[in-house]
Structure formats: structure tokens, C-alpha cells
């Protein structure tokens, strides 16, 4: 069985927000986009996208409206709000700090 990496808590929301930065998408497209852009490294359990989207809706970081998909299905598309954009910046900044910290621990500067 292929090893599956769980995402760090909270990262899924960040990835969704980042994906939506490029334009409004529906759920299926969001998961496709995350998998493709990460070159299949990030295996998101597709279903977990929907609870995350509900959380984002509730915080007011995304808006949802019903539309039609490329395959002509009635789907809900999600769009980033200004508040969501700010949240994304905050999350990225925090995440980079975290990454920097981790990499300093993993590869200490040799003196």
C-alpha cells in the first residue's frame, strides 16, 4: 500500500485559498489542481475538501455560487474574498516561518 502523507493541520485550507487565487473553481477542479500542481506529492483525500470548504465559507474567506462545470454539470464554484486573500497572506507568512525553522533544525548551519 502506498504511503500516504497527511497534510499538516490547517494546510489544506491554505492550499485551497492559494488555488482559488487564480480564479473561481468548483470542488472537483480544486482537488485536481492541488494534485496536479504538487505533482501528485500531496495526496488529499478528496472528500476532506468539503468540510474544509465549509469552514472557509463560515469564516467568510470564500464565497460560493451555483454554476455549470466544464462537463455541463450543476456545480458550486468558490471564489476568494478580500478577507480570504488577507488570510492567505497571513497563512503563507506563518508557514514560511515554520518551514524556515524546521529547515534550520534539519540542516543546521555548520560552523
Amino acid at each position, binding site marked *: 500500500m502506498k504511503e500516504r502523507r497527511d497534510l499538516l493541520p490547517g494546510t489544506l485550507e491554505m492550499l485551497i485559498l492559494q488555488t482559488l487565487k487564480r480564479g473561481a473553481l*468548483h*470542488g*472537483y477542479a480544486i*482537488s485536481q489542481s492541488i494534485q496536479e500542481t504538487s505533482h501528485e506529492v500531496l495526496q488529499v*483525500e*478528496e*472528500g*476532506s*475538501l*468539503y*468540510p474544509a470548504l*465549509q*469552514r472557509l465559507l*463560515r469564516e467568510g474567506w470564500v464565497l460560493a455560487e451555483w454554476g455549470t*462545470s466544464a*462537463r455541463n*454539470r*450543476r*456545480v*458550486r464554484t468558490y471564489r476568494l474574498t478580500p478577507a480570504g486573500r488577507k488570510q492567505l497572506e497571513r497563512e503563507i507568512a506563518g508557514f514560511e516561518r515554520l518551514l524556515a525553522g524546521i529547515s534550520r533544525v534539519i540542516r543546521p548551519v555548520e560552523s
Partner: protein
Amino acid sequence: MARWLERRRVEREMAAEMAVHIDERIEQLMEQGHSAEEARVQARRQFGNVTLQKENSREAWGWNGVEQLAQDVRFGCRVLAKTPAFTLTAIAVLALGIGMNTAMFSAAKAVLLSALPYPEPDRLVEVWQTTKAGAFMDASGPDFRDWRDQNRSMRLASYGGDQVSLSGDFAPRRIRIGVVSAGFFESMSVSAAIGRTFSRQEQKLGAAPVVILGYDLSQRTFGMPAQSIGKSVRLDGLAFTVIGVMPPAFDFPLRAQAWVAQELFPDPSTRSAHNYHVVGRLKAGVSVRRAQEDMNVIAARLAKAYIDDRDEGIKVVSLYDEVVGPVRPAFLILLSAVTLVLLIACVNISSLHLARGTVRAKELGLRAALGAGRARLIRQLLTEAVLLALAGGAAGLALAVAGTAVLRHSAPANIPRLENIRVDTGILFFTAFLSIGAGLLFGALPAMAGSRADVNESLKQGSGKGTAGPQSKRWGNALVVGQIGLAVVLFAGAALLLKSYWKLAHVDSGLRSSGVFIADLSWPAINGMSIDSKEVLRLSNGLLAGVGSLPGVQAAALVQPLPLSGNGANGDFEMEGRALPADPHLNPNAYYRLITSQYFDTFGIPILKGRAFEEADDRSPQQVAIVNQSFAANFFPDGDAVGKRIRFFGFDRKPEFMTVVGIVADVRALGLDKPARAEVFADYMQHAAFSPDATLVVRGPASLQAAVSAIIARLNRDTPVEFQSMDQVIAGSIARERFETSLLSLFAGFALLLAAVGIYGLLSYTVTRRTSELGIRMTLGASRPAVLWLVLSEGGRLVAGGLLLGLLCASILNSTLASLLYGVKATDPATFAIVALVFGIVAMLGCYLPARRASKIDPNVALRYE
């Protein structure tokens, strides 16, 4: 409602959204060349758990709490209903545990917690005179008056109690009266409900006698309390006019049913006659300690001024402590015991639950596999536990209502306020709180253990029974050991009390009490007033002659006071020819009792030397006395008491010397737990004027009581009679000990049962789980006794551990029992040995049943079972 609609819409939309997602994935996969079937499976796998995601989304909106609780409750009910044996056992155990606690707490609330039923009860105190050794005494009249007039911290009143005959135009009856001084009702801050209390003019020697009735008494006597005002009643034959009726709950002091003014009676006016209780109301803002300091100054002043007050002190005690103090230690012990019982019950159910939790491992594993988080599983298991506890609590409440009724009716008279016990709202809250607490307590451990279920392990097909990890096994063992330990502590305590009670009940009182019945009499003449000694003599002689001539009566006598009735009188005396000590505190002192000639025959008390009183003594001017063995040994160690003359200072108006004519064996007259004291018997007929009260004692069949009543009614129609057997009187004197002992024994018996059930449950479960292992052992040649022994020894280790733990704790904790024990040490080794033995036997019985089942295993069946 709007929220609910909103929620329905969101859920519908999300379901649609998810369905579209999966469809799109399927289409895409099919485009990539997968078959329709493959594509569907693959898409589902990639999407994950649909239900769980829906649930998580709901959580995102914060909708889960109520929904899950309702779900848990529904599911819990279903689970519990599916295992009725377990559920009913657990509910029964909890019902008993919670019921006992609720009943006991109701009793404690009535006795210990409720405030005294008077205004501002915190300000009420009782004031005592104390001896050099610190023993409490009643106050003398002159001392009381000095206290009242000199203190600056409280308002004092004195009181006493008595039993008198109430008569009038109704059937006469015996009632308890309070004899109270001026200022009594003011100190208590209670006024009459109807009519009024005493006026100044009525509180004087020689005033026209008036009486205040208790509410119940006035209602029973006159139908309507208001109608009793102005009516005339007779107390011990003397006419009193009713001037008031007190409010229903007021019965101070000593459950009084009527009150008369103390000032109507002459006061001996000596500082050595300690006759009065003293009650006081502290002035606003004054503490008991301040009042005590105030009284210390007065005590010092009096000690300097009067020789009778030398070395005597004054002690101020809050009235609450005075009322509740004597029973508090016993109640605290009973409360702790009953709490222990509930704890054992919880541990018991916990271990049952734990064992079942392991059986349920498969179900829990499945739920975990379907996406239930650990917190969710814990919540589910706790919900079940609390449900169980609430059901147990409800049943327990019903038990408690019945239990409090039993307690109310069996309340010994010397436990104050127990008759007020009832289950009220406070108690309801207590029970609810207790139930939920118990549920969380016994649910916690199994929930933690159960929720740790390993998905892979529990779902593997072969393991058949679902394995208990070594951890949950260890917990199970610890629970059983703890349960036994706690139960042993209780059991040891109960055994000590039982032994103590047995010793007390079988103490040789010196009286042959069986076959004797008694009746308290009060000839019509009130103490200290209008005594007609000729009339008392006529009535007494007539009574004894009449009773003596009844066929079947072996002996009959009058006595005052009756031994073991809780009353005793003592006084200082002098011996002819011996100088009195300079310090009156060192005067010889002895208990005294007035009797008629057949008293010793009636009670079978042996006469060791000399003779009993004879009828000739009654009319002789020569006063006679009989002393007991202790008296003779104490004051006449040379064995020459007979023929000597003694004189009590407090006897009659003009005390005379009495010649000792006999020595009798000792009787424990003051209490079964108290050794006999030096005692002098005087001839009732020679001192009839001294006491119009007496108790008739008759050795003869109880069927004669009606005939005795008829004789008394013929002699004086105002004299009420109530019979009791002497055995009842003696039983009454140890009623409180019996009450405490029976309650604690009940608790301990239940604890023992629980511990046995606990170990039985654990081992049964172990045997079931090890069926295949035992089967293999037997196939490999293990004999049946060997298997029996294997299981027994496992149980035996737990029992031994629990016993050791329990006995250790008991030897430490039981020292708190010391104050309740008579003739037994709190660390009595024999008792502990018996406890260990009984407990060992019962617990091993709990082990034996599952062990025998194990040894009956058929290896073929056991192995095929796999």
C-alpha cells in the same frame, strides 16, 4: 426552526456537490481507460468516507453537539437494552448504592445540617457548670441567678424537664413538660401561636398555676388549639389554666408538650443543688468565645466567694453543638461508610463494564474503522455509563424514599431530629448529582480502555473473542483488588461494631429483666407542691396489695428511678461517727434509689448479706437503707456495712440517719456500658412524700396488664398507665448503638456481596476469554484439578492482595471508630482474623464458580471454537 431549515439546505447542497465530484472523477477515470466498475471503486476510494466528511462539515458549523448527544443516548439505550442481564445487574447495584447514599444523606441533612428551628439559631447557647475534672453539671439556682444578673454577653434562662400526668375531661395521659424560668421564651425568641406566654405575676411562688400547651397536644386534647385557651387541666392532679398554645414545631426542651413556670416551685437555694439547665441568647455580635471569657470572670468571682463553687467553672456551648454534638461522630462514620459503598459499587460496575468493553472491542473497532475518533468513542461509552447511572439513580431514589420511611420509624429517641427526615428538592439534586458523578466515575476507566481499541486487532477474524490488552487486564485486576480492599475496610468496621454491640447487649446488667413489665406512674401531686404523703402511701399500698393478689404475679414493687431508664440521682451523704472533710467537694457521694420491699425479688437481685425491706419497716420510725456491693466495698472495706448509719443531705425536708440492713449485688443501673456505682436503696414507703413519681415493676405474665390498669383506675382515675416490658426498656437504652450497628452492617454486607460479584465477574470473563488456551492445556495433558487450580490461584492472588490492602487500611482507619466501641479495641486481632476468614471464603466462592466452569471445558469444543 430557521436554523434547522438552513442546515437542511446546506446539507442537501453539500451532498449534491459531493455526488458531482465523484461522478466527475468516474468519468475522468473511464476516459483514462478504466472499466465502469473499476472507476467507481477507485473514485470512492480517492474520495474517502462520505459520511465522515459530512459529519466533519457539520462540525465546521458547530452543529454536532446536540445531534451527537441525542445519537449517543439513542444508541446507548439500544446497547443497554440488548444486554438486559448486565444492564439490570448494574442498575440494581447502582440503585442500592445511590439509594443508601440518598437515604443516609437525608438523615444527615435532618440531623446534622438543618438549622435549629428557632429564630437566629446561631445565637443560642447552652451554659453549664463544670467540675474540676471538666464534667458538665446543671447549675444551682443561686449560681444561675448570679450568672443571669452579672453577665454582659447574653440573656439567660433556666429550664428543666419532667414527665407528668395530664388529666381533665378526657382520658389521662403522660406528657413531657418543660419547667422554664422567666425570660425563657424571650431567649428562644419564640412567642405563643395562640394566647400568650407567662406574665410576671404568673412567675412567682404561690401564683395561680397556668400552663402553655404544645400545638399537637392542644389539638389532640381539645380538637381545636384555639379552644384550649382558658380551659382547666390537671397536671399530676393540680389544676392549671391554659393561657397559650405554642407554634407546631416548638418542642424545646426535650420534646416538651407543655410548659409551666419554674417560679411556681420552691428552689432549694443552695449552691450545691445542681438542678437547672441554662439556655441563653447571645447579644448581637457576641461570639461564643467572648461569652465564654465573660463567664470565666464570673466563675472566678463565684469560686472565691462561695465554698460550693470552689474549683467549679462555667462552660458556654452553642446549642447546635449541644443538640448535634453527641451524634455527629457516628453520623460522619456512617456517611463515610455509605460513600465507600457507592465507591465500591462504582468500581464494581466499572470492572463489569471493562470486561464487557473488551467483548465489545469488535464493535468499537468497527466504529473506529468507520471513522469515529477516540473522543467520540469515549463520549459514547460515557453516555452509556451516565444513562445507566441515571436509571440506577431513579430506582435508588425510590429505594431512598422507602429507606427514609424506615429510618423515621426506627429512629431511636436519643438521636435528635431524625424524625424530620424527608426526601426534598435538595435531596433530589443531590441524587441527580450523585448519579451523574457515579456514572462518570465508573464509566471513565472502561471508556479510556475501550476507546483505545486497536482497529486491526479487533477486526481480525481469528481472534474470536476480541482480546483484552494486557493493560485493560491490569486495570481489571486493580479494580477487583481495590474493590475487595474497600469492602474489607467496611466489613472490618462493621464487625468491630457488631462485636461491640453483642458484648453490650449481652453484658450482665445484674437484673433478671425477662418476665418483668413496668409502668411509669405519677400519683396526683406535683413535685414539690401540695404533697399529701398519706395519700401517696394509701395509693401505693393499695396498688401493691392489689397487684400482688393477682394470680400469676410473683413479685411487684415500686421503684424511683427505674434502673437503665436514663435517669439517675445521686447525692452527698455522711456516715455516723466519721468526720466530714473540710472541702464539701470531697464529701462521700452515692447514687440512691427508692424501692419497696419486693424490688430485689422482682428483678432477681441476690441479697448478699442482711435482709431486704419488710412491711414492718414501712411503718417504723427507724429509717432503713440497703447498699450495693460497690458501696460496701468503697465505704466499708472491712465488710461491716450492715448496722452502720448513713444520712443523705438532700433527702426529705429533714434528713435522718438510715440504718443499713442489707447488702445486695451490683446492678449496672446507669447504662449497660457503664460499670456499677456505689448505690443506696431507701424505703419508698418511708419517703413517700419525697417522690410522688414511681415506676411499678411486676414479675408476672404480660397478660395481667389489663387487670393492673383496672386496679390503678379504681385507685385514681387521673393516673394514666402505659406498659412496657423491662427488656424493651433495656433495648431502648442501647437503641442508638443498635441503630448505628445495623446500618453499618447493612452497608458492609452489601459491600461484601459486591466484592464477591466483582471477582466472580472478572474471573468468569477471564475464563471465557481463555477457553481455547485452557482447551489446549487440557489436550496437552493438564488435569481438570490443575485447570481448576490455575483459575483459583489467579483469583486467590487478587483476593489476597485485596484482603491485605483492606486490613492495612482498616487498621489505620478504624481508630475513628474507637469512640463508638464498647469492650473492643479498634484493632481487635480476633475480629480482623474473622473478617479475613469470612471475606476469604466468600471471595473464593466467587472464584470457585468460574474455576469449576473452566475445569469442565471440553477440549474438543474449546478448540473447535477457534
